[in-house]
């Protein structure tokens, strides 16, 4: 409604509208393995309150979550588990790598620790720090929201690639090779 009472329209692209919805209702999956997990809990609790950004409902089942926060050291023995949990999440899904350990192995430059979770799963946002402060995590979250709005995240790249393929052959099931051939880097 405009000021004089006549009806007006607000036009937007459907994609933008969907992205707007997605970015304000992130459902985090807390993959907290060590000290960074404690700081993630602080971020989720009332002092810093991640709920203000729509990331309120923390789900401990990957099937009900769409943003994975990897907080802490991921051992080599943990790597298959992380990959499995990631694959169980429904598309579109986002990954935040929180802390030095998850992003690069951190101080644990040894045989038993993976040197960054991006060797196992695709990551959208890295939050540096040991541990990152809650403000840092919130900054990462807001950056992720910006990326979702612009359609820059890896999940959305995958989605666009699939759409592009299905445009030309709507009844064909797409494979990873098709995505690559369509010119998008799936990982």
């Amino acid at each position, binding site marked *: 409604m405009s000021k004089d009472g006549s009806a007006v329209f607000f036009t937007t692209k459907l994609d933008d509208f969907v992205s707007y919805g997605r970015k304000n209702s992130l459902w985090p999956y807390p993959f907290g393995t060590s000290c960074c997990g404690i700081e993630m809990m602080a971020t989720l609790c009332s002092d810093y309150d991640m709920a203000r950004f729509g990331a309120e409902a923390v789900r401990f089942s990957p099937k009900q979550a769409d943003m994975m926060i990897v907080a802490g050291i991921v051992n*080599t*023995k943990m*790597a*298959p588990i992380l*990959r499995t949990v990631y694959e169980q999440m429904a598309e579109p899904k986002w990954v935040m790598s929180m802390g030095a350990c998850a992003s690069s192995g951190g101080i644990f*430059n*040894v*045989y038993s620790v*993976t040197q960054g979770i991006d060797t*196992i799963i695709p990551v959208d946002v890295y939050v540096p720090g040991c541990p990152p402060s809650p403000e840092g995590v919130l900054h990462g979250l807001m950056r992720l929201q910006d990326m979702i709005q612009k359609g820059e995240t890896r999940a959305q790249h995958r989605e666009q690639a699939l759409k592009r393929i299905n445009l030309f052959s709507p009844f064909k099931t797409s494979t990873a090779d098709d995505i690559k051939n369509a010119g998008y880097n799936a990982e």
Partner: protein
Amino acid sequence: MDINTPVPTIYGKDFEKHGEMWKTQIAELRTKFQGAIEEVRFPREYPTDVPILYVKKESVIAVLDHLRSAPGFEYGFLADLTATDEEIDPRFEVVYNLLSHGNMARIRVKTRVSEGQEVPTATTLWMAANWPEREVYDMFGITFSGHPHMRRILMDDRWVGHPLRKDYALRGYQLFPDTPPPKPELLEKSDR
């Protein structure tokens, strides 16, 4: 550190309390297991907190059994079982740390083992030796004969090499992102 200097630590307290008992115990062991005990390292003579008995690996279980249940010994608690890589021949030392709850005293038994040799399992005496022995196998590649379940416990089943050996690369990364293939036989057998 000069071996002959007295050890200026709290360890002395243990020695004051249990020194005499340890001496009689070791004398008894020496008469009972002649030849099986290669060497004894005693506090105040060697920088150690408790006596270290080096036992031949063939008779280590007999000695441990005696330490565990013979009257006057009663080291009934296997506090730890681990190993060290000495980079000499014989290469490894398997270490048994025992604790007596009755006397509140500790004792340490070691056995030397070369690469590729087997040590008899201590699970016949302590069920608690099961996982430490698997850990020693995982980290050092020492196998225990008679162990019910000699396989890796900490590292991935597909891991190549044994990471705590001195010749293993510090940054010998191996990455296995995919879940290991299932093992139906593990569902049938109990872990013991």
